[in-house]
């Protein structure tokens, strides 16, 4: 522990407190007032230090003492993170409940990691082995799903002099180096600084989400970034939760940043019950939840994003693939704005601080595919929800986000209103990973993947153009071929793009199923176009019924049979005409 330095409160205005006679560095954590509220130094001037306080400041008075811990805001990293639910500064919510009941009072700071629980540590190195920072020296089975790799903490290296096997707490020494330095399972890391990596790499595989519109049309890569902006009610949270449930990653970090309390409850009740499609274990076994709801202190909301990404980086360093969901980054930006305005900083666009875009870029840049210091490949994919005021995408947070992210899922209120879910607008959204990932899809799903997806997109774009004409003259005036295009587009929209998150089967669609569905729909189109060329009237083609069988395949476990049957019957019907 550093030398403790003290000061006195000079002024209190909401979460911002000014302190005189304090010795502190920027971002040092301080304990404010007699109740020892947690705060962080965010501005230093000749006379005062300005501190943002992570708890409610009601009743705090000028003249009360302030203590500097001399440390920046850190997280504790080690076994026990998974299955946890923390607030924005890594206080475990179940422990807060034990300490102060159902409502969050202040001044409590429980242990962030359980220091009494014993974990079975298995060493992977032996006495005399040379080890360096980030190298894995042993493992702990943290949950049924995830094996926790104990790494040499930052800044240490040497030769193993002693290493133990057996049951230990996170603060017990499990290994000693020749220079006398002891290694425990727990390490600390300041949240505002990215953890070091060996080498950064370009993403090359998709993050499979089981959501047809995402996997097929707008994929995100493992180690990539995506933003989902949309007005309220467009389904941002459902998308985030679907990804948290089904994305093919090893660990999920879900940050509820300034959102609804009842939504976190939903996650908390659902995740322990839902099964991870890969392992069959409850999803909670691979999840870390961070919940700083909208009515919890705004400064802790600002910190929650950093707390989450640091935990994600820690698991990435073990060689895992992480998906991090931030719902919502707009609330995070608003927290910055609120604090910035209390500091009386000169505002940038719409009152947001001038450093908004820098902070957003720095955050998204902590995503990526890397070789860790220990030599393992891991990745963090960030999916950030954005809540633009009034659904207006030209506002600063959306714009600053779009400058850095590679995938843009545009959520559309109009689609949501007619219950087209996921309400991702197929015309405005884009993914810059499509080309990078084409090779992967060709190899792992089907060689003609890119071709099929491309044709479907072309039909959807054609539909948009035709709809403009229909609006003016009615659909009767269209030529036959265009009428057929409209019908195929409808099939793509209703059968393929729409997916029911609340249906047991339809909630997850593997790549094979997605591909087969799309191929069957386009198969109809090709055959119908041929039939049209032989002079069959479009009315007769549209009157066929078998193609509706494709819609039923969504809800069937044995989708192959249903799709093949639908395909066969479609062909027979068309041939008979």
């Amino acid at each position, binding site marked *: 522990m550093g030398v403790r330095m003290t000061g006195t409160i000079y002024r209190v205005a909401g979460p911002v407190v000014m302190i005189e006679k304090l010795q502190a560095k920027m971002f040092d954590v301080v304990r404010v007032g007699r109740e020892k509220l947690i705060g962080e130094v965010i501005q230093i001037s000749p006379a005062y230090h300005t501190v943002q306080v992570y708890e409610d400041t009601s*009743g705090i008075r000028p003249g009360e003492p302030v203590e500097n811990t001399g440390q920046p805001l850190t997280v504790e990293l080690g076994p026990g993170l998974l299955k946890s639910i923390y607030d924005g500064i890594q206080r475990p919510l179940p422990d807060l409940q034990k300490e102060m009941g159902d409502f969050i009072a202040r001044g409590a700071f429980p242990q962030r990691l359980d220091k009494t629980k014993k974990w079975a540590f298995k060493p992977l190195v032996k006495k005399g082995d040379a080890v360096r920072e980030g190298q894995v020296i042993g493992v702990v089975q943290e949950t049924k799903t995830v094996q926790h790799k104990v790494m040499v903490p930052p800044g240490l290296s040497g030769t193993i002099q002693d290493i133990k096997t057996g049951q230990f707490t996170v603060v017990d020494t499990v290994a000693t180096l020749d220079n006398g330095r002891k290694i425990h399972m727990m390490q600390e890391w300041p949240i505002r600084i990215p953890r070091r990596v060996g080498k950064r790499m370009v993403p090359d595989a998709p993050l499979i989400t089981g959501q047809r519109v995402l996997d097929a049309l707008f994929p995100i890569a493992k180690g990539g970034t995506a933003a989902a902006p949309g007005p309220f009610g467009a389904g941002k949270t459902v998308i985030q939760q679907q990804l948290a449930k089904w994305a093919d990653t090893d660990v999920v970090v879900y940050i509820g940043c300034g959102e609804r309390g009842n939504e976190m409850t939903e996650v908390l009740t659902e995740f322990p019950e839902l099964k991870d499609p890969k392992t069959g274990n409850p999803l909670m076994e691979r999840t870390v939840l961070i919940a700083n709801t*909208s009515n919890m202190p705004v400064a802790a909301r600002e910190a929650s994003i950093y707390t989450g990404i640091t935990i994600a980086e820690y698991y990435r360093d073990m060689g895992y693939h992480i998906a991090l969901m931030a719902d919502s980054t707009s609330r995070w930006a608003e927290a910055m704005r609120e604090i910035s305005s209390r500091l009386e900083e000169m505002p940038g666009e719409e009152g947001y601080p001038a450093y908004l875009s820098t902070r957003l870029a720095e955050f998204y840049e902590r995503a990526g595919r890397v070789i860790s210091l220990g030599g393992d490949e891991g990745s963090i994919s960030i999916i950030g929800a954005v809540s633009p005021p009034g*659904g207006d995408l030209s506002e600063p947070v959306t714009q600053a986000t779009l400058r850095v992210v590679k995938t843009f899922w545009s959520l559309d209120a109009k689609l949501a209103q007619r*219950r087209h879910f996921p309400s991702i607008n197929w015309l405005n959204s884009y993914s810059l990973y499509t080309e990078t990932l084409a090779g992967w899809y060709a190899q792992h799903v089907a060689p003609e993947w890119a071709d099929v997806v491309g044709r479907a997109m072309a039909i959807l774009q054609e539909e948009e153009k035709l709809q403009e004409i229909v609006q003016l003259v009615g659909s009767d005036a269209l030529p036959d071929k265009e009428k057929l295009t409209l019908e195929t587009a409808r099939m793509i929209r209703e059968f393929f793009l729409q997916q029911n998150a609340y249906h047991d089967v339809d909630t997850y669609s593997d790549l094979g199923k997605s591909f087969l569905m799309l191929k069957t729909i386009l198969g109809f189109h090709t055959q119908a176009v041929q039939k049209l060329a032989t002079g069959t009237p479009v009315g007769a083609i549209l009157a066929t019924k078998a193609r509706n069988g494709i819609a039923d395949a969504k809800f069937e476990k044995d989708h192959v049979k249903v799709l093949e049957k639908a395909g066969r019957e479609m062909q027979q019907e068309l041939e008979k005409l």
Partner: protein
Amino acid sequence: MSDAQPMQGLNVKEYRTINRVEGPLVFVTKTHPIGYNEIVKIRLASGEMRLGQVLDTATDSVVVQVFEGTSGIDNQATARFLGDVIRLKVSKDMLGRVLNGRGDPIDGGPAIIPEDELDITGASINPYSRGPPRDFIQTGISTIDVMNTLVRGQKLPIFSGSGLPHNDIALQIARQAKVLSASENFAVVFAAMGITYEESKKFMTNFEETGAIERVVAFLNLANDPAVERLITPRMALTAAEYLAFKHDMHVLVILTDMTNYCESLRQIASAREEIPGRRGYPGYMYTDLATLYERAGMIKGKKGSVTQIPILTMVGDDITHPIPDLTGYITEGQVVLSRELHRKGVFPPVDVLPSLSRLMNQGIGKEKTREDHKQVSDQLYAAYAEGRDLRGLVAIVGEESLSPADRKLLAFAEAFEKQFVRQTSQENRAITDSLELSWKLLSALPEEGLTRISKDFRAKYLKKQGA
């Protein structure tokens, strides 16, 4: 909730050093340390007392916002700092009482003998302690029950416009709301912020006529009451609601009206403090501030009671992207949007289902809760009505003749949907099964293969009944 008792005498300090008055704000020079958010009593030369709260405290001066306005305050007035935050005296006897916006009785009855005095700021419920809201509340209004289901512990605002019958709808919900199969321990907390005497009278008369007044706590801040007081009125109401719900196991429905007036007061204070304004002059922290109100709804694991909120707000110029409805929509679990067009057509309740939404609906409906086909029927109604509405635009240009027969059916469906499903009287209490049967009746007019949102099994089971 911290329960440190105020230490009278020891912490109370009185100053006659008011050196600046600006709008609702008073600046006081002082020597003793004063706590942030501390309560202040200002005594005018005439002997009148005003209530205030500390907004900013420094070593030598404080800024106080005065809830009852600053007219008549001069540098001869004194400021007493009470060493405590604002508290509401709560008791089960509050039921049946009418209080003003500061929590004092105005019904001529005796003072309330407090069982407890609670900090009105309220603490946030630990997300880990929250219970999942999943009890279906039947309001008897089809558009809400079938398509935007309300569940216990939800916050579902009504987005209205000036001149629309939002008050009638709120009253109808308060009157008819019931949970199927549950024995009732029901209470209504009613908070009026800046509404007219007439409007408040309508609520109170209705509560009296239906006998509901026994189970109502009313906090009234009317249009001619001080604007700044509106900032504490909803907090008083929610404190009372939480107390009744979590101490006395009651299911409390909170009606907050009108949130637009609350936000106006918030803006007034912000501009008096010369804060940097956000969109349309509203302060940048309005989201956080509204969240501290709306998030005080929910259930708690292991407790029997619940707080359900129905805030009402009038959209300025019917604009749903205006900051007040916009920020509200981002916090609440859905919204019920009223439509001027439907109102003009004479449809009551004029609920526009398309922009309306209930986020907690899926948890509260389905087998064993309402009926197995509920979700799919709702989705189908949405899809068909949306298409029908689109076609109206088309018909205006090309005429009805050029529509295909299927489209004509959709057009007729949209019309029938508004006339039979949306429309009902303010006294009509439709059971959920009746509302669902009505939905099937309307849907049966459409070609069966067009009902893609409903599974084959349900179509076979429920659609046939219509033909029979």
